[in-house]
């Protein structure tokens, strides 16, 4: 207490000094010599307007001297008569300037604050004011409300602001203010709202802010504030909102914050806070939003949190919290959002969760939780999303979930669940995502799942599912991603798949599917990934797959596919990766594959392919072994005999030039020598006779 008095006195002295400095400063804009207060206010406003960038002046066309009396227009000028955004008191002096969202591009420096002795309300938010906040703003003795938020103000918050002794609301959020929070703000005894969020403020939160006994809302979020949260903030007994999220605050959460019994929203997320969550948090009887996520908090979650009966949102994710989740959390009857994910929590989930029937979003993923799904979740009709993946939860998954009218997303992947997939999932009319990857599920896929027609992602991979794909899957016409890989499913791909026109990603690999690859797959025009590898698909690759213009990756390897590779596949112009290895494909690789310019990776090894390898760069490093008669100009392959003939025409021509012509020429020469020799001999003979 003595510290705060000391601060108070020090600040008061500082304020006096600042005031003296300001008054003696040559930059003062004193009121003009004009007689009426109203005309000097008009002048000040018009001077200010004149300093704006040209286009904004159009918004303030009403700011003008009255044209009716031309002899002395200034005498009749009154901003109280219909000037946009200006209101006056009964004495005709401006007491309110409200120019929010008025397209003002300018600064505050040309505004003569001294001209407005009665201004109580200054609202300039959502404009494009730039440059600094002039310290002369402190010359508004009656100012109660100051809102400069959502502009482009820069520089530091002037400490002279402490002279605005009547100020109740100070909004400077969403600007580019820098420097520290001046401790002089603590002098503003009547301040009830302080919003400095969304700036570039740094330094520590002044402990003297605890002097602001009337403060109900303190918003400092989204800055670069550092240091600890001052314990003295626990003295702000009227505080309802404390928002310090997205800063670089460190140290522990002060237990004294538990004294803020009127606090409804406490947001400290995304800082560097460490230490434990103090159990005094349980004293925040009014709390509705408690958000401590994305810090380095350790230790256990205090059970006293279970006493916060008004709690709607509890967000503790991405910390290093350990120990069990207190069972008392099941007592929170108004809880809507429960986010405990990405911690090191162990033990069981609270048994009475969703007791009040209000829980919508429940995530506890990425912890080390064990034990069963709480029975109370079965009747939790309010559920919209449940994320419990990456834990060690166990239990029979077919019994623990019910029918949820609002459930949109479920992920139970990578746990130890067993049992069958419940047909009740079909009774979730809004279900969009169902993921139960990597568990010990058995039994077959229930046909009732086709009733959940809104499903867009269905991932049941890496389980022990058996049986066939039910035809009813064709009813999931919104399906975009279907993963059934890594199970023991058998049978054919149902023809009803042809209605799954929006499919983007299809993975049926590593199962026991058989029969032919249906040609209808070629109609999935948005498909970018198709993996049917490691199955028993047989017969030929349907040429209709060539219609998959946007397919990026195709894996048909490790099947029993036979016959020729259809040349239409070269129409897959977006294909980058193709794996056809380990099949019984025969014939030659279509020459048209030379047109697949996007190909980067190819594997055609272990087939019965023969003939020339197409002239495509992707084949250069491609695994092609285990085939019968592939040939080509590639390392490890024989050069092609027919190719040699064709290629050799070029080579031959060269050979012709290099070998044959010189031979021919020498022959010619020899002949000509012979010829000459013969002629000479004849002549000699003739001469002799």
């Amino acid at each position, binding site marked *: 207490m003595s510290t705060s008095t000391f601060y108070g006195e020090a600040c008061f002295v500082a304020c006096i000094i600042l005031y003296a400095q300001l008054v003696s400063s040559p930059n003062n804009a004193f009121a003009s010599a004009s007689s009426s207060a109203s005309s000097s206010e008009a002048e000040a406003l018009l001077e200010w307007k004149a300093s704006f960038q040209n286009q904004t002046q159009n918004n303030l066309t009403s700011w003008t001297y009255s044209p009716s009396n031309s002899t002395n227009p200034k005498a009749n000028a009154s901003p109280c008569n219909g000037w946009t955004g200006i209101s006056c008191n009964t004495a005709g002096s401006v007491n309110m300037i409200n120019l929010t969202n008025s397209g003002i591009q300018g600064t505050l420096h040309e505004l003569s604050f001294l001209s407005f002795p009665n201004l109580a309300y200054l609202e300039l938010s959502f404009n494009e004011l730039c440059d600094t906040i002039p310290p002369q703003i402190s010359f508004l003795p009656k100012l109660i409300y100051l809102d400069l938020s959502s502009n482009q103000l820069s520089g530091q918050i002037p400490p002279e602001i402490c002279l605005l002794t009547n100020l*109740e609301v100070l909004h400077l959020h969403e600007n580019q203010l820098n420097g520290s929070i001046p401790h002089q703000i603590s002098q503003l005894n009547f301040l009830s709202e302080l919003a400095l969020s969304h700036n570039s403020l740094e330094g520590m939160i002044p402990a003297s802010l605890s002097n602001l006994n009337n403060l109900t809302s303190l918003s400092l979020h989204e800055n670069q504030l550092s240091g600890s949260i001052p314990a003295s903030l626990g003295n702000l007994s009227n505080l309802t909102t404390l928002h310090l999220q997205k800063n670089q605050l460190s140290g522990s959460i002060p237990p004294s914050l538990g004294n803020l019994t009127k606090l409804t929203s406490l947001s400290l997320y995304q800082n560097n806070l460490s230490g434990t969550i103090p159990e005094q948090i349980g004293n925040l009887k009014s709390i509705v939003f408690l958000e401590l996520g994305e810090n380095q908090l350790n230790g256990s979650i205090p059970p006293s949190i279970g006493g916060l009966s008004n709690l709607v949102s509890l967000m503790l994710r991405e910390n290093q919290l350990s120990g069990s989740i207190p069972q008392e959390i099941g007592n929170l009857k108004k809880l809507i959002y429960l986010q405990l994910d990405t911690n090191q929590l162990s033990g069981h989930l609270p048994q009475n969760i969703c007791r009040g029937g209000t829980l919508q979003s429940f995530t506890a993923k990425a912890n080390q939780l064990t034990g069963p799904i709480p029975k109370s979740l079965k009747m939790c009709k309010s559920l919209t999303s449940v994320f419990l993946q990456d834990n060690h939860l166990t239990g029979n998954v077919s019994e623990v979930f019910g029918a949820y009218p609002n459930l949109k997303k479920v992920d139970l992947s990578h746990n130890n669940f067993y049992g069958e997939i419940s047909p009740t999932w079909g009774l979730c009319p809004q279900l969009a995502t169902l993921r139960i990857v990597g568990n010990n599920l058995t039994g077959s896929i229930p046909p009732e799942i086709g009733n959940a027609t809104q499903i867009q992602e269905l991932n049941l991979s890496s389980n022990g599912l058996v049986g066939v794909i039910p035809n009813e899957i064709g009813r999931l016409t919104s399906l975009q991603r279907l993963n059934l890989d890594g199970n023991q499913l058998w049978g054919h791909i149902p023809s009803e798949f042809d209605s799954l026109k929006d499919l983007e990603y299809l993975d049926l690999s590593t199962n026991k599917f058989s029969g032919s690859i249906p040609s209808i797959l070629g109609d999935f025009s948005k498909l970018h990934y198709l993996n049917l590898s490691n199955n028993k698909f047989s017969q030929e690759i349907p040429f209709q797959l060539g219609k998959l213009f946007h397919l990026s990756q195709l894996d048909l390897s490790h099947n029993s596919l036979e016959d020729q590779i259809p040349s239409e596949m070269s129409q897959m112009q977006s294909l980058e990766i193709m794996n056809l290895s380990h099949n019984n494909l025969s014939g030659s690789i279509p020459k048209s594959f030379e047109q697949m310019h996007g190909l980067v990776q190819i594997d055609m090894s272990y087939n019965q392919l023969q003939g020339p390898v197409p002239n495509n760069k992707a084949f250069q490093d491609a695994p092609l072994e285990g085939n019968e008669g592939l040939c080509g100009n590639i390392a490890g392959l024989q050069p092609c005999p027919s190719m040699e003939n064709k290629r050799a025409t070029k080579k031959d021509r060269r050979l012709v030039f290099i070998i044959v012509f010189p031979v021919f020429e020498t022959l010619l020469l020899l002949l000509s020598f012979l010829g000459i020799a013969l002629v000479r001999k004849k002549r000699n003979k003739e001469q002799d006779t």
Partner: protein
Amino acid sequence: MASFPLSLVSFSLTFLFFLSPALSTNSEGNALHALRSRFNDATNVLQSWDPTLVNPCTWFHVTCDANNHVIRLDLGNSNISGSLGPELGQLKHLEYLELYRNDIGGKIPKELGNLKNLVSMDLYGNRFEGKIPKSFSKLKSLRFLRLNNNKLSGSIPRELTGLSNLKVFDVSNNDLCGTIPVDGPFSTFSMESFENNRLSGPELQGLVPYDFGC
């Protein structure tokens, strides 16, 4: 006198403060959310795009990598109109930008040139206008660039010849003018990639100015 509006303001502000902590901290999610606000989504394909979630990786038509960075945006043939914005350039890990066959108009934002991991950009079949951004020359990983069937004008930036990984290029059915580059990957593209424009044929190096008649 000012107390009533004051209390009204502080109530509404308190309400706002209740909402604001719930918004995502994820910049990629925020970028996609901003993109969504520019779109008219006639068939509600973006319904799952919930900005209050931790990241956009559970949003449909969005694919993330193991580090929760967006690598694919698949919105082809989705009845979307509206325009694009610079925020798309913030998806630094994006590899596949699939916006083909919609009704998206306006200019192609130059910020798309910041997507240095982009492998495939399919903007074909829309109403894009204006020029092909020169900044596309920064897309060093680009393999597929399909801008055909739009209303693009101006010339094909010569800088695109530096995209050594570019394998598929289609600007047919636009309003492009000037000459067709011949260097780098452009030597491999067929003439169909350029048809139905106002292009004046292949670039004649050293003889006439490049942007001749454009």
